[in-house]
């Protein structure tokens, strides 16, 4: 076997320890973690090797490997670790640093992972949205509906939202594309392409990975956190539901405006708000409730398992609380609107918009990025036989 030249990096070790992996150095390499892990492939299993690579600060070996993302943090390893080294938490911290490496600009990822910058990150959507409202004169004068009812779209016209959020989403997608490409290159560099060239097999890998993801198959292998499969599934499908609703609403608005489609049957083409009898509304409300249920389950599981499996870092909780906030403010906005409680309705809706912007714009830098990088790793893993 040829010699591997190691470049130990103390800075990286400290970064892992600061990012939620403070137990990293306790590992004494007994490999209990790799034995109890039900997700790892048998050949060269994780997370034992990741633990020592991280102890030595060998970041290139960690990043250019799908394994840190193939881990679903069941935390079986953490539960059985005889030394309290919490491999699950450590790998989570490494993933955070991996996001920082691949999602450029890196400073945004650094800010997303650091509570000191939270206020700045929140300030961006707040300033943008206030600027829009201010320029429309809607800060002092809130236009109502024909019958004096609350119509959010009159206060914050949808095209403004779409422009702003569309731009944020486009930025996120761009960052993701660059991130995926750069990650993929690193992954491919570490395989023998004479044997298999992963780049030629993407279609195959993608199909298999999507099947796994939709069925949440990997989660089912977890022992300690089996319940997480359910909660994640709630959140996952709620997001899909909400994505459909959003597209649906765009279709209603612009279909009416540009294509002249009129209301028919139960389909209410035109401006929001839409009546509760509309099927889009059914899906939206079901998804919102699913999201609330799911995210509450996430929170309760995490609190319940805190002692045994690790409490998670700021990075984890930020995403959880943003999602919880979005779901809660979304549902409350609707209820306050229906109840015509203007005093609380507008601030709630404003908060809702801020949080959605936060989620969209910072997705590549927050833990939200896991869907993309883990997805990429799973595709790669399917091709190379590790997932």
């Amino acid at each position, binding site marked *: *076997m040829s010699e591997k030249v190691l470049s130990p990096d103390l800075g990286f070790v400290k970064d892992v320890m600061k990012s939620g992996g403070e137990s990293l*150095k306790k590992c004494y390499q007994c490999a209990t973690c790799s034995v109890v892990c039900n997700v790892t492939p048998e050949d060269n299993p994780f997370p034992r090797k990741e633990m020592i*690579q991280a*102890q030595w600060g060998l970041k290139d070996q960690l990043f250019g490997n799908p394994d840190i993302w193939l881990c679903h943090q069941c935390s079986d390893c953490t539960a059985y670790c005889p030394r309290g080294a919490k491999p699950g938490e450590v790998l989570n911290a490494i993933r955070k640093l991996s996001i920082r490496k691949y999602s450029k600009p890196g400073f945004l990822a650094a800010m997303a992972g650091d509570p000191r910058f939270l206020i700045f990150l929140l300030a961006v959507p707040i300033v943008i949205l206030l600027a829009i409202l201010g320029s429309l004169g809607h800060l002092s004068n809130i236009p109502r509906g024909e019958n004096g009812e609350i119509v959010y779209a009159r206060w914050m016209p949808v095209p403004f939202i779409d422009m702003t959020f569309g731009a944020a989403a486009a930025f996120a997608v761009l960052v993701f594309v660059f991130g995926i490409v750069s990650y993929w290159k690193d992954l491919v560099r570490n395989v023998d392409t004479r044997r298999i060239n992963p780049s030629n097999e993407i279609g195959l890998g993608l199909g298999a990975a999507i099947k796994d993801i939709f069925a949440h198959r990997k989660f089912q292998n977890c022992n300690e956190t089996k319940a997480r499969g359910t909660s994640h599934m709630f959140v996952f499908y709620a997001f899909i539901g909400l994505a459909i609703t959003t597209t649906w609403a765009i279709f209603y608005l612009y279909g009416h405006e540009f294509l002249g489609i009129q209301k028919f049957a139960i389909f209410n083409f035109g401006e929001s708000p839409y009546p509760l009898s509309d099927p889009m509304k059914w899906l939206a409300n079901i998804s919102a409730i699913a999201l609330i249920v799911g995210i509450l389950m996430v929170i309760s599981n995490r609190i319940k398992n805190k002692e045994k499996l690790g409490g998670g870092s700021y990075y984890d909780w930020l995403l959880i609380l943003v999602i919880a906030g979005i779901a809660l403010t979304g549902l409350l906005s609707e209820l306050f609107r229906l109840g015509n409680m203007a005093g609380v309705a507008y601030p709630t809706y404003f908060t809702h918009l801020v949080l959605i912007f936060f989620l969209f714009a910072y997705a590549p830098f927050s833990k939200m990025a896991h869907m993309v990088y883990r997805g990429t790793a799973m595709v790669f893993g399917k091709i190379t036989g590790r997932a």
Partner: protein
Amino acid sequence: MEKKYAVYVCKGCGIAESVDADKVIAAASSHTKVPKDKFKSHDILCGPEGVAMIKADMAGEGVNAITIAACSWRTKSDEFNFPGCVVSRANIRELVAWSQPPQTEETQALAADYLIMGIVRTQKAELPEPGILPDLNDTIMVIGGGVTGLTAALEAAKAGYDVALVEKEAELGGWAAKLYKEAPGQYPYEKLNEPTVFAKIKEAEANPKIKIFKSTSVEKTDGQPGLYDVTLASNGNTEQIKAGSIVLAAGWKPYDATKLSHLGYGLANVVTNVEFEEIAKKGKITRADGKPARKVAFIQCAGSRDAEHLPYCSHFCCSTSLKQARYVREANGDAMAMIFYKDIRTPGQTELFYKNMQNDPGVMLTKAEVKGVAEEGGKLFVHATDTLLGSAIKVEADMVVLATGIVPATAPFQTWWDGMTEAGKKGDAERNKFTEENPRPDGILNLGYKQGPEVPSLEGGFGFVDSNFLCFQYETRRTGIYAAGCVRQPMTINEAAEDATGAAMKAIQVLDHIAKGQAVHPRAWDLTYPDPMMTRCTSCKRCTEECPFGAIDEDAKGTPFYKINRCRRCGTCMGACPERIVSFKDYNVDMIGSMIKSMEVPEEGLRVICLACENDAYPALDTVGVRKKLKLNPAVRFIPVRCLGSTNLVWVADAFSRGVDGLLLLGCKFGEDYQCHFIKGSELASYRFSKVQETLDRLQLEAERCQMMQVGIDDYSKLPDIIEAFVKKIEDDLGPNPFKGF
């Protein structure tokens, strides 16, 4: 002393249920010609009434030679302690009542034989008179002024003894004084300690009972415990001192790193752990060019656990490297210490220090087989395979520290001595050639003993002093000289201090015992001593050769004479002597021979004699009885011996000429992991009996009739089967002794 005999048979503890005491008494009386009225039995002999009965006989009838048939002699020694009387014990509880079927003819005969042998023992034994030599000195000489020596000196002085502390170097403190810091020795094993040895130096220098000799070596040690005449040499001058006992704390030397060129020694910035202490002591961890060392690689087991170099583990190098990793980290927060180990060995609570160091982000650890350290483009690289990092690796380092192990101070001479002995086996020419080619290294004790000038090391023991690390630490094969610290085995500073305390205690104990004429370990109570009838000595020197403790020297004419305070009373000389002239008051060739000859050998059926070592085999036999479920073959008669080394070959003749069908010897394990309490006894017995088998062959007696086996005290569960197999082999393969009935 005119003996007035009395024999007591106990019926308690199940003996009465097993045998008929009256019949046993009748048999013994008719066989030994001791009148029946001298026999008494009692239900609970060890109880107050039983003991009172014996004492009444002593007072009333002047009884002074007592035989007690009851439990094993290993129990109830306080109850059956009758000062001024010869007391023998016949074990009819463990070896009869508890390990034989009750009320059978064989059991009855067995009990009778044990009682007969007990009576013979009483007849042949005399009261011991302690042999106390005049003008005993009770100064304790401590050789070595390091942590071990200083601690031993302080402990002995605190106990009230005068100490002569001899240090070869100009300053006290040894290696411990050369350290920058010490690895932590107390909970929570977190902080490094300032070197502790300086406080000890101060304390020793201030203690009026400790006389310190610096830059001094021992030129000659003559005499024996209590009577050592030591010649000290210092800068060309010599001085005579007297000492009573000696603590050997000569310490160690680091392994010669010039032999480790494959690990880069000789290159710039490749240093040993000892050299690294000197670098750290200067205050900065810097390279040869003065630049700070940011990446320091520690290579564990450098030249240790390696067949080419030191095959053993030096025990403290892992904590030392962890400690030195702390130096690196404390000197520079951005510096990394990379430790490549075979496996981390931090014994005991030092594990906590390992854990603490492991938690430091800048301490990187991996198991590795380090293949080499080499320079490439002006940079140092460590090459290793079999790492936890998954492949062969190459890591750059600013500095490489080789964790070298220790060589005991006793090793150079021992190696030379062994080489010379080996060459000597091929003749004087070879020996002379060896001594010409290999200059004699300096000795440490330079003993004027027939058996050689230093304390022996165990064969295959790498030059460490032979001192059974489990059962009898500190004891060496030279009575009165106790080894402590790294001459015994590699150890840490704390362990060395503890070891020194133990050795000081032994050095005190020997002074106390010789003043009373008592032996030391393992027969610390014994007042007897070997008393040879020198008029019959042929100066064959077997005793001087075989004594495991070098207790017998020779005078100018080559006649052996005992340095009695060196003797441990094992009786190896008694076993060795072809003239059978060595006797103890209560243990001698005639006594055991008479016991063998006294027992009934039946015309029909087998009779086997087993000589069992008192230290391991006999206790194991007792345990067979105590367990009660195990049974011993009733054809076997067990006789305890002080050590298998004391078995004289004449007993073989005694046994087989009486028609005994087999002779079994149970002794301790010998060899590298020996358990013999007298170190060489069972090995010597084995050697002796390998010769007797030739004799048996000539007598046309099958060699298999006489067999020696090694058993441990924990082998009790196997013993019945071992004995059964031996008896069965004689029964099936050999048949009865053809001399039976002659």
